[in-house]
Structure formats: structure tokens, C-alpha cells
């Protein structure tokens, strides 16, 4: 493993710190493994949702609860945030001015927070017509799946704030670069999980 450049979004470590390129490889690969383990958690919640989609027990159904427009807007927000994070990664890699990096990270954070606000609004709307998780197996599995994704986004937003703090404190040293890159992987993966959510949950709920 001694390629001249890191395989993941080409991290440029320069000669900034105690960590070598090899160690950066390890750090990123380990995080990939964690992400895959996390993906299994989501996969099982999807499977559970699939088996419980008909368990509405006379209560709210997918067709009655899922609206296409908010789901579409949330999808666009998350997709765009994934792209802006990618842009921030490039700003980091090519050592663009600090304000450019902060600008793109700030945009990503903003999009993530708006996404969370919209999702919270969706949940509140559902609660308003008695579609809460204690009502039926279907709603339990919906809130566990989509809620866990929302929790992940919230954690990612918190992490982003912490990373901005670290950039301020240490500049872009090797560890900050690695952790920003890991956060990037996390963020992109959350968008990929969301693709499955809008396809399986929201779109399926609106078919027919």
C-alpha cells in the first residue's frame, strides 16, 4: 500500500504531522469497515420495515401519511449537501483559502439542519393525525428506520461543528484532514441510505 496518492478522494497530507500516509490509509479503511457494519443495521431496519408495511392494524397507512413533495425536497437537500461536502473536500485537498473551506462546510451544515427541520416537521404532521410509533407495527418500523437515519444526520451535523472547531484550533493537520475525510464518507453514506429510504418508504408508499 504505497500508492503515491491516497485512494480516497486523494488526501493530501503534506508533511504536517506525526501520521504517515500508511496510517491515514488504515484510519480510512477502518472507518469504511465501520460504515459497512452500520449499513447492516440499516439493512435490517429496511427488512423489518418490509415485513411490517402491511401491519397497519386499521390505523394510518403509507398512502395516507407519506407526501411526495416534502420527501422530494428533503431528497434534494441531502443530495446537495453531499455535493457541497465533496466541494469542501476539494477545498481541503488543494489548500484553498480557509474561508472557502468554511463556506462549503457551512453550506453543508445548513442543508443538513434544514433537512432535519423538514423531517421533524413531517414527524410532527404525522403525530398530529395520530400516526405515532405506538399505533402500529408499521409505524414503529417507519419511525425506527427514518428516525435512525435522522439521528445519524444529527450526529453528522454535530461532528461537523466539532471539526470546524478543530480546523480553527489546529489548522489542517494530518488528524484533522483524516477526520474530515471520514466525516465526508459518513455524510455521503447517509445520502446513499436516504436513496433507499425515499425509494422503499416514500415512493413505494405513494405507488398505486
Amino acid at each position, binding site marked *: 500500500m504505497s500508492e503515491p496518492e491516497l485512494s480516497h478522494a486523494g488526501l493530501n497530507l503534506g508533511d504536517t504531522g*506525526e501520521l504517515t500516509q500508511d496510517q491515514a490509509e488504515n484510519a480510512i479503511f477502518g472507518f469504511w469497515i465501520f460504515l459497512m457494519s452500520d449499513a447492516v443495521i440499516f439493512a435490517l431496519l429496511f427488512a423489518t420495515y418490509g415485513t411490517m408495511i402491511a401491519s397497519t*392494524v386499521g390505523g394510518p397507512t403509507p398512502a395516507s401519511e407519506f407526501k411526495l413533495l416534502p420527501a422530494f425536497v428533503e431528497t434534494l437537500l441531502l443530495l446537495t449537501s453531499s455535493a457541497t461536502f465533496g466541494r469542501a473536500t476539494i477545498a481541503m485537498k488543494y489548500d484553498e483559502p480557509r474561508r472557502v473551506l468554511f463556506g462549503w462546510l457551512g453550506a453543508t451544515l445548513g442543508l443538513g439542519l434544514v433537512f432535519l427541520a423538514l423531517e421533524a416537521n413531517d414527524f410532527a404532521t404525522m403525530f398530529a393525525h395520530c400516526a405515532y410509533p*405506538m399505533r402500529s407495527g408499521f409505524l*414503529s*418500523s417507519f419511525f425506527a428506520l427514518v428516525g435512525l437515519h435522522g439521528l445519524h444526520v444529527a450526529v453528522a451535523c454535530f461532528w461537523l461543528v466539532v471539526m470546524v472547531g478543530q480546523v480553527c484550533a489546529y489548522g489542517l493537520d494530518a488528524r484533522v484532514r483524516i477526520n474530515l475525510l471520514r466525516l465526508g464518507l459518513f455524510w455521503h453514506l447517509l445520502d446513499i441510505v436516504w436513496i433507499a429510504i425515499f425509494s422503499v418508504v416514500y415512493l413505494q408508499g405513494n405507488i398505486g
Partner: protein
Amino acid sequence: MTVSVPLWPAVLGRFGWQDLPFVRVWENPTISEIIGAFAGALVVVGAVVVAALLTRYGKWRYLWTEWLTSLDHKKIGIMYIVVAFVMLSRALVEAVLMRMQQAVAIENPGFLTPDHFGQLFSTHGSIMIFFMAMPFLTGMINYVLPLQIGARDMAFPWANSIALWLTIGAAGLMMASLVVGEFSTGGWSGYPPYTERAFSPGVGVDYWIWAVTLGSIGSTMAGINIACTVYKLRAPGMRFMRMQMFAWTSLCTSILMIFAMPPLTVATLLLALDRYLGFHFFTNDLGGNMMNYANMFWLFGHPEVYILILPAFGVYSEVVSTFSTKDLYGYTSLVIATMAIAVLSFTVWVHHFFTMGQSANVNAAFGIATMTIGVPTGVKIYDWIWTMFRGEVRFTVPMLYALAFMMTFVLGGFTGIILAMPPLDYLVHNTLFLVAHFHNMLIPGLLYGMLAGYYYWFPKAFGFRLNERWGRIAFTCWVVGFYLAFFPLYVLGASGMARRTQAIFEPSFRPWLYVAGVGAFILLAALTSLGIQLWVSIRDRAKTQVEAGDPWDGRGLEWSVSAPPPEYNFAVLPLIDGRNPFYDHKHDEGQPDPYASPAAYEDIVLPRGSATSVVIGLAAAVAGFGLIWEIWGLTIVALQVIVAAVVLRSFGRDQHRTIPAAEVARAHEAWLTRVRATPAVPRQLETAAVNRGLAEIVA
């Protein structure tokens, strides 16, 4: 089940006086309660005595800086194994109590109440799997793997320590359930709807949920760490196909941990959502489906079986090869078999619930998959037999365990084939036949392997050998005790005796239950012998020093360094040019001398110790404790402590320290000098006092 009045709900949550076993025994002094109170007292007294001894000898600081906060993979590995032995002791005593109850309670209520009996089989199973087997194998991998692949530490030392402390915290919750409250009566698998709040309102199931959840998160972290270590930290020239078998089985085990622990986490957390927030995943009403719990639990549970067994397979491969004085036969086939087992283990989980009610075709498919997995396992057995064939076999303790394993495990495999046939499984489902089968797999397939590894690598870890005689006594007790305790259960199970039975109404079962009871006592004697062996070995350690580091004429890289190894493992990272580089260098003409001084030394960077991992693991246990007792404030504070510790650590810099090349050179050269002064011993004398850890070269 306790019905206690909450004392001060705002601060103490659900806690009431009745939750203390000491109060319960005062109010209702039955034998069952006395045993419970005695166990609780033992935990308290044990903790107080340990704390007092540490204070008396002024060892707190040493313990804290050298061990608890250490990120050294070797110390973490040893601490895992200490946890495993402590928990093994408790769970084995519980097993003896259950055997006594069943031997006594024939047309008779016996001395344990059904509720107490239920807690015993639940804690016995949960502890043996999650807090004995998992820490034991994780600890062994932690200790041995980096040494075998020529690495200085694991890939993520800090995460390694967090995984350890999550396991310790979870084990702490198991112990706390003896002192405050009660444990689940839902078995180690915790099937709903029985474990839903409607049927089990007490704290017991919550103890089970949070202990298991923390343990499984710790195991996931350990798995990620091990896999990344094998993938990225192998010494120069150490190709995959040059790794020792134990490194291979560690890799496959870690992959199973990464993908099989999440289903358990999901199952327990969804059960928690049901219990705490009234969700309907596994309830009887409002669309819940308890069979999805069984499905997810065994999506974890079956790979888990191989998580437990594969490391032992690795140990046996090392042991059989070393003590047969031969290269491992069929290395490539063993590697392929290990990988095949790892993948196939994800395709057989339904055989744990053949009786659920799905169609015969589904059962047939999974029955066939189950039988298929026996094939690679058979390949392994043949490979070990061929390794011994025409070898110079030395019957040391680890080799004895390996031989006992091969015989016993194959017998268990035969009963597994019976259980893999759905029509036959219907007959013995949920009976003692099953209990006999999985003990027949896991005692030889896990415990013997871990004990063999413990004996085999102990001199490496501590610099002196374990007592051979007490080792043989312990071995005899483990084997005889196993056969007596579990083979009667096959008969009982085939005769229809259900597992987890508190009282028996069939007098003809009596003789079998008596024999099983005797077996349980012999197993207890086996554990005691291990304790005596350790004590005798420490007492006589001056006579069994093996500082040169190679007492068994070993093959892997781990034998090429001193015993105990320096904290950086290798003064100079070795260059690997074959499958058994150390052995070949020792024994082949014209190869470089493995004890030659290296040309140059370099500075070595190692992680500093960290208290944050201790804080995180214990805070997680406190958060769990708060959830169990519904002390929400405690949980919130503990979670904030975890977040703060992670963030603080991420802001920390200067978390490494450098050992200068000169210091490495001094230590290494001094050791080499002592090695040169060490008399070499032929293999035949390896258990004699002359063995100082340097193998004699036989041309």
C-alpha cells in the same frame, strides 16, 4: 419476581428495598433466597476485598497507569482474559446449581424457585457467550495476532481499549444484577413476547438488554479493529498466504463480528423500544411480529457460533503443528475451509427455528445449507489428523486438548446433522438434546481451544511456563466432566425432557440427571484445578523461566521475541520470506540466524495510555444502569460524559511517545546476550525445568 415499592422515584427510579437480595432473604429466608443473597454478598465482599488489597499494597496507581489506561494490545488482551475467567467462574457455579436443582427436583419442588432457576439459566447462557467466550477469544486474538503478523500494535489502540471497557462495563452490569434487582428469566436469547413489558415488567430483562447491547457494540468495535489490523499492519513480505492459521481464523472471526453483531444490536434495541416507548415490533398486538426477533437474533446467533469456534480452530492448527513437529498439512485447504465457513455461516440461521411454521421448502433449503457447512469443518479435522500423521507427536497439555477436541467435536457434529434435518428437529426441538448438542460443540470447540491457547501462549505473555501436572489434572476433569455432564442430556432430550425445566415429573430420568450432576461437579473441579495450576505456577516461576521466548520450538513470529515481549513487540520489524520464517531460520542451513543483531535500530512511536476509554466504557455502563432503573438523569449525564470524552480526545494532540533507537538497541542487545547464554533444550525436554525458552536445533 420482585414486587417492590419505589423508594424515591425522582432520584432512585424504580429502586425499592425489595430489590436488595439481603432484604428479600430477611423477609423470606428460603434456600433459594439465601443462595441469591449469598451470591450478592459475594460480589460485594469480593469487590471490597480487592479494593482493600489494592490499597493495602499501594497498587492503585500501578494498576491505573500500567494496566487500566494502557493502550498496549498485550495488556488489553490479558485484561480481556481475566474478565473471561472471572465470568467463567460465576457461570460455572450457576451451572452446578442448575444441575443440583434438576437432580433434586424430581417429583419434588427442589430448592430453587422457578423464578430463581430462570434467572440462573439466563445468566449462565448470557455470561458464557457474551462475557466468557467473547472476551476470552477477543483477548487471545488481541494478544497473539499483532505478534503473529509482525505488527507493533492493533490498528486502533484507543478503540481497542474502548471495546475492552465496554465489555467490562457490560460484565459489571451482569454482576450488579446480583446485588441490585434481579436478572431476566427469558433465557440467553431473550425471546419476546415473554420479554416484553407486558409479561416481564421487572428490571431483569432490562439488565439483559443493556448488558448484551454494550457487549455487542464492544465486539463490533473489536471486530473492526482486528480486521483492519490484519489488512493493513502485516509486516513487510507477510502476504495473506504466509500468515499463521490463527491469524487467518482471527480475520474470519473479525469479519463475522463486523457483520453479525449489528443484527443483535438491532434486535435488542428494538426490544428496548418496545419496552420503554411502547413500540410494536415484537408484541402480540397492534401488528407486532415476534418471529422477526427470532429471525434477527439468529442472523446474529448463527455466525456467532463460528465467531466462537474459528479462533479455537486457529489455536488447534498452531498447537497440532507445533506439537507434531510438522508443517500444518493442507494449509491452503484450511484457509479456504475457514473462509467457506465464514460465508456459509450467514446462510443457515433458520435452523434455529425450524418449528416456526414456515413451509417445508424453506426448512429444506436451510437444512441442506446446514449440512453443507459440515463439509469444510470435516476438511479441517482431516487436515489436523494428517498433520499428526508420521509426526513426532508430544502429548503436552495443549495437544491433549486438541486431541480431546477432535474426538468430542466430531460426536457433536453427528448430533448436529440430526438436528439439521427438519423432521428430526421437530422431535427434539427445545429439549435437552439441543442443550447437549451445543455444549458438545462449544465446550470442545471453544473452551478447550481457549484453554489450549492459554497454556500454549502463557509462557510468551508472562515469561514462565504453567505447571504441567495440574494442567493434566484440569484437562482430565474438563474431559471426564464434560462427558458425564452432557451425554446423559442426549438421552434425556431424546426421551422428551424439555430444556430449562425447573422440576421433573418423570422418575425414570433420575439416574441420568444424577450422572449429569456428578459431571457438573467434576467440571467445577476442573475450574478449581486451573486456579491451583495458576497458583502453583506462579509460586514455582523461578524454575520455569523462558525469557528466551521459544519454549515449544514454535513456528510463528510470536516465538521470535522475548517472553514477555517488549511493549513495542519487535525491536526491528521482521522481513517475511516464507510461511514459517522464524522456524525456517532456526532450522535450515544457510538461513539468517534469528538471534543475530540487526543492522540498525529506529525510533519507535507508541500510543500513550488514555483514561478516556475507561471513562467511556464505564459511563456507558452507568447509562445502561440508569435506563434499567429508570433514573433518567443519570443516563443523560452519562451520555454527555461519553460525548465529552470523545470530543476531548479528538481535540487532544501529543498522544504518542517515542522510544529512542538507543533505548531499543540497549534492551534488545541485552536480551540477545542473555539468549546466547541460554542452554538450548531438545523438544522432548520441553516440560522439564531445563527449558529456558530456547529450542535446540536438530539438523
